[in-house]
């Protein structure tokens, strides 16, 4: 087989297939981790029947979903009904293909960079472009079902996604400004050169990116589209069986890709902590890929933690947060980072130190403030009578 055929067809094909299978499997295992974790956080057990600690629960769920009847409402637009979930799944996989998972890999005599798809020099722009395709998936799924609740859920969801894309874009611009490049590999190398992860000077940008990312993936506290109490199941009300499973895989796939992009932009991708400090070089025993995967995994745990901690926003609060809070903050942050970057890497380091100190001071202040008494204690103190 010719060299170019291997590089242009075989390698991308194998990588693509592996990534899709990886996303599907990771989605399954994540549901198990999520349900066990939520169980712990809510002082109950979670799934514990199928296999050790309930680990095979997700396999049982997959089997169930695959064998379930494929119900497509008779009034639905059949083709678009199928297109919806696919358009949501595709971006998750492609974005994971554009994020570098490690420096380089040689396998079966073929050396290839360890990104799944390609090191494109405008990768970040492409990631933003591709991930916005998901909006079409959601709104088409909602519209094509030809039913009230999916239509409303799809509209809401589309409004939510496009609203949070704006602060996300501004946050990403701040990271680009620090790195001076749109290539994911060069952004990681810029963090190695600067000797500091961009999360420190880009603390606000990272915060904005992650909050918008949670909103983009429709996770709690921004899971309005699936607000069961008002909209049944939101845009996927009319989906069942494996079609619904595609939505499910896309949600987890998008969580992984948001985590992967955040890791690359702000947490040094595959780099170990403090990549330039020599005495920490013993950390290099852990291969680069595992640093990357470990950081992404931490993000996924934070997603689950959010779900156990925060109540859901109301829709007008959600839009107000996006348009009236995150956008002004992101513009201000961009200006701040640009100002610090006038002095190059030194300016960014100073900005990072100032931000970290501010956060530390805030934490200390919060720590020292006396805790609010619980509702029951206050009611007892104010002699509020509870009528039966």
């Amino acid at each position, binding site marked *: 087989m010719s060299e170019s055929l291997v590089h242009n067809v075989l390698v991308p094909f194998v990588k693509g297939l592996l*990534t899709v299978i990886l996303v599907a499997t990771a989605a399954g295992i994540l549901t198990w981790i999520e349900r066990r974790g939520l169980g712990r956080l809510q002082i109950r057990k979670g799934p514990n029947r199928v296999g050790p600690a309930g680990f095979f629960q997700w396999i049982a769920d997959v089997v169930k979903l695959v064998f379930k009847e494929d119900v497509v409402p008779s009034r639905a637009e059949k083709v678009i009904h199928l297109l919806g979930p696919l358009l949501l799944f595709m971006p998750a996989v492609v974005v994971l*293909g554009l994020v570098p998972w490690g420096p380089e890999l040689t396998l079966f005599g073929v050396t290839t960079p360890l990104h799944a798809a390609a090191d494109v020099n405008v990768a970040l722009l492409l990631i933003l472009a591709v991930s916005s395709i998901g909006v079409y998936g959601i709104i088409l799924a909602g519209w094509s079902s030809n039913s009230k609740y999916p*239509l409303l859920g799809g*509209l809401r969801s589309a409004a939510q996604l*496009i609203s949070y894309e704006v602060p996300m874009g501004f946050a990403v*611009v701040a990271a680009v400004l620090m790195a001076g490049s*749109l290539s994911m590999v060069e952004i990681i190398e810029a963090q190695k050169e600067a000797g500091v992860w961009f999360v420190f000077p880009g603390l606000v940008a990272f915060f904005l990116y992650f909050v918008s990312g949670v909103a983009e993936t429709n996770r709690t506290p921004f899971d309005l589209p699936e607000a069961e109490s008002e909209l049944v199941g939101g845009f996927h009300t009319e989906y069942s069986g494996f079609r619904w499973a595609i939505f499910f895989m896309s949600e987890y796939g998008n969580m992984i890709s948001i985590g992967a992009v955040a890791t690359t932009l702000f947490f040094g991708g595959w780099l170990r902590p403090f990549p330039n400090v020599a005495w920490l070089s013993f950390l290099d025993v852990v291969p680069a890929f595992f640093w990357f995967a470990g950081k992404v995994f931490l993000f996924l745990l934070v997603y689950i933690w959010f779900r156990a901690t925060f109540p859901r926003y109301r829709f007008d609060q959600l839009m107000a947060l996006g348009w009236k809070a995150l956008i002004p903050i992101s*513009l201000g942050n961009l200006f701040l980072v640009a100002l610090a970057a*006038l002095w190059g890497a030194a300016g960014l380091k100073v900005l990072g130190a100032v931000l970290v100190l501010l956060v530390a001071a805030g934490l200390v202040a919060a720590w020292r403030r006396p805790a609010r008494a619980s509702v029951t204690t206050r009611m007892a103190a104010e002699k509020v009578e509870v009528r039966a």
Partner: protein
Amino acid sequence: MQSYIPILFFAAIAALFPIAILVVMALLRAKAPNPTKLSPYECGIASATDAHDHRFSVRYYLIAVLFVVFDVETVFLFPWAVMYDKLLLFGLIEMAVFLYILVLGYVYVWKRGALSWA
């Protein structure tokens, strides 16, 4: 251009993988449709109208238009951010002027109440 080909592979495989499972499992899964099962989700009564006949809030259009304005703005910021280490102070002032116009529009839109949902 060649470096973009793998991305197309990814997109194609991501689309074909779920379709393949749907097609293969069509041979194995249960299949027992009936008119009630295939009707749109309602509270038990067959809906008289198509969902597409209903109208929805004009605010969704407004949000969409505002999004386009801000997103185009972001597109202009990307090349500026990449070249910032060469533009420096000139770039900062230039972009401050550019963003000033955006912020004027933003304040106007806010004052007109386009950003509040209630």
